[in-house]
């Protein structure tokens, strides 16, 4: 069999990148939304939170730690029947969104919890004395004050998701990971593999730089 040149493989790589963008984009949105919700819940329910609740804090904490301690590959396999029930199939880019999101939500939730913990207690008490309720404190104090931390955490999560997504490729999720396995592992085509790796590095760098730029712009204003 003739060795495929990187130029010939380029259209296929583009298609794979599209699949990666699809998986990572959707799972990122879901992770940010649910991770924020779970993170806020953990912060509020923690012993020094606004609504201390040991039962919620402990049980959510255990689930979060459990999910985080499972290697992603194992989590993905363990979730196959759940994914099939949810989206009708366990293969392909759309199906991969489910384990990607479930794998990263606990991670981002912990990031959110610790970012919220950084907000000075005095600011929260100031809002309390002004008669703010819990929801107002979350919306007007906790989230805006910790926004730089939430964004840098989201950047980290996005990079992690890109990494996870290549593993999803390994069990039929498509995307750049799948591409790299097919050319680099199954056909030993180093040239094409190098191209895939280069593109991945550029994407990760780009994501990280954009995230850092947003945080820095905020820090400049806020000091």
């Amino acid at each position, binding site marked *: 069999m003739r060795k495929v040149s990187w130029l010939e493989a380029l259209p296929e790589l583009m298609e794979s990148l599209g699949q990666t963008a699809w998986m990572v984009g959707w799972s990122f949105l879901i992770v940010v939304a649910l991770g924020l919700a779970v993170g806020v819940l953990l912060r509020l329910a923690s012993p020094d939170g606004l609504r201390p609740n040991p039962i919620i804090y402990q049980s959510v904490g255990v689930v979060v730690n459990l999910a985080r301690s499972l290697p992603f590959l194992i989590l993905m396999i363990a979730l196959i029947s759940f994914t099939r029930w949810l989206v009708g199939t366990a293969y392909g880019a759309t199906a991969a969104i489910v384990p990607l999101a479930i794998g990263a939500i606990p991670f981002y939730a912990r990031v959110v919890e610790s970012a919220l913990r950084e907000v000075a207690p005095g600011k929260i*008490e100031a809002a309390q004395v*002004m*008669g*703010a309720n819990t929801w107002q404190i979350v919306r*007007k104090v906790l989230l805006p004050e910790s926004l730089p931390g939430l964004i840098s955490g989201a950047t980290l999560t996005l990079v992690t998701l890109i990494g996870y997504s290549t593993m999803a490729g390994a069990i039929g999720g498509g995307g750049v990971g799948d591409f790299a396995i097919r050319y680099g592992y199954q056909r030993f085509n180093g040239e094409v593999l190098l191209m895939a790796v280069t593109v991945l590095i550029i994407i990760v760098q780009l994501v990280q730089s954009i995230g850092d730029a947003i945080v820095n712009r905020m820090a400049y204003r806020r000091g």
Partner: protein
Amino acid sequence: MITVTNLTKVYGIGDKAVAAVQDVSLHVPSGGIFGILGRSGAGKTTLMRCLTALERPTSGSVMVADAELTSLNGAELRSVRHRMGMIFQHFNLLNSRTAAENVAFPLEVQGVSKPKRGTRVAELLDLVGLADRTQSYPSQLSGGQKQRVGIARALAARPDVLFCDEATSALDPATTEQILDLLKQINEATGVTVVLITHESEVVRRICDSAALMADGRVVEEGPLLQLLADPDSQLADILLPTGDPTLDPGQDSIVLTFAGAHTSEPVISGLTRHFGLDVTILGGAVDQIAGRKVGRLRVSLSHPEGIFDHAAVHKYLADREVSARL
């Protein structure tokens, strides 16, 4: 405005229990500036946290504007708090908001419409002298300016009472004076009751009408400043107008004369010499403007060349001139 009755706050349990505030009762009259003076660890912060319901007392009662704080549920407490303003040692402004947005915060919380908020915010930033910094972020402001934003924020919702938690302790002396004068001016203009806690006697001396002295979790003295100053035994008076250390003059029987009346300008000391033939030695003293009046405290020793004099007559002479002393 505020009445505290037998308030006790204990932290920890069992052997580790520490009473931060013990059996404190005090009354803060409406419309004045009330200072709670004490060293760190005296319990004043805990007391203020109980006054703002950030802390639930172990026992006792706290009445603020006719509401018993200890018996309120969440919604009731929030509505009482809408009548409170508070400023802090470390300002506690939100870094994510501009000065104007920080001031708007309590109005947002209370559901005031955006146009009304805008008018009120502009009015307040003008009042505190920051009309030109409305769009600045806290990081771009100096400490004094931050505290001005804090004051504007605390006043935004037209509170009945303004709590100041060591509000000038993080500021330099000149800025401290400006902030204190601003508080005094606001108190006079709006009639808002001001309750401040501080470890700096200068704060009490400069703006308070009445005060409480705290030590070891208890209120040692409490009342209108002029009344306390007139008491020769008052510890607070000695903190506000110190007359020097009596042990530095061994062998001298010294007494403290307090001039708090309207006759401060009368030559009382030379009168003692003229009328009673007494030798008056001034050992120490201080004079200052307190609670709108010129008040002086002098530590003197009185002696007569013949070794004896009529204490009762001297006492009456001093009392007639509104000079209090214990002979």
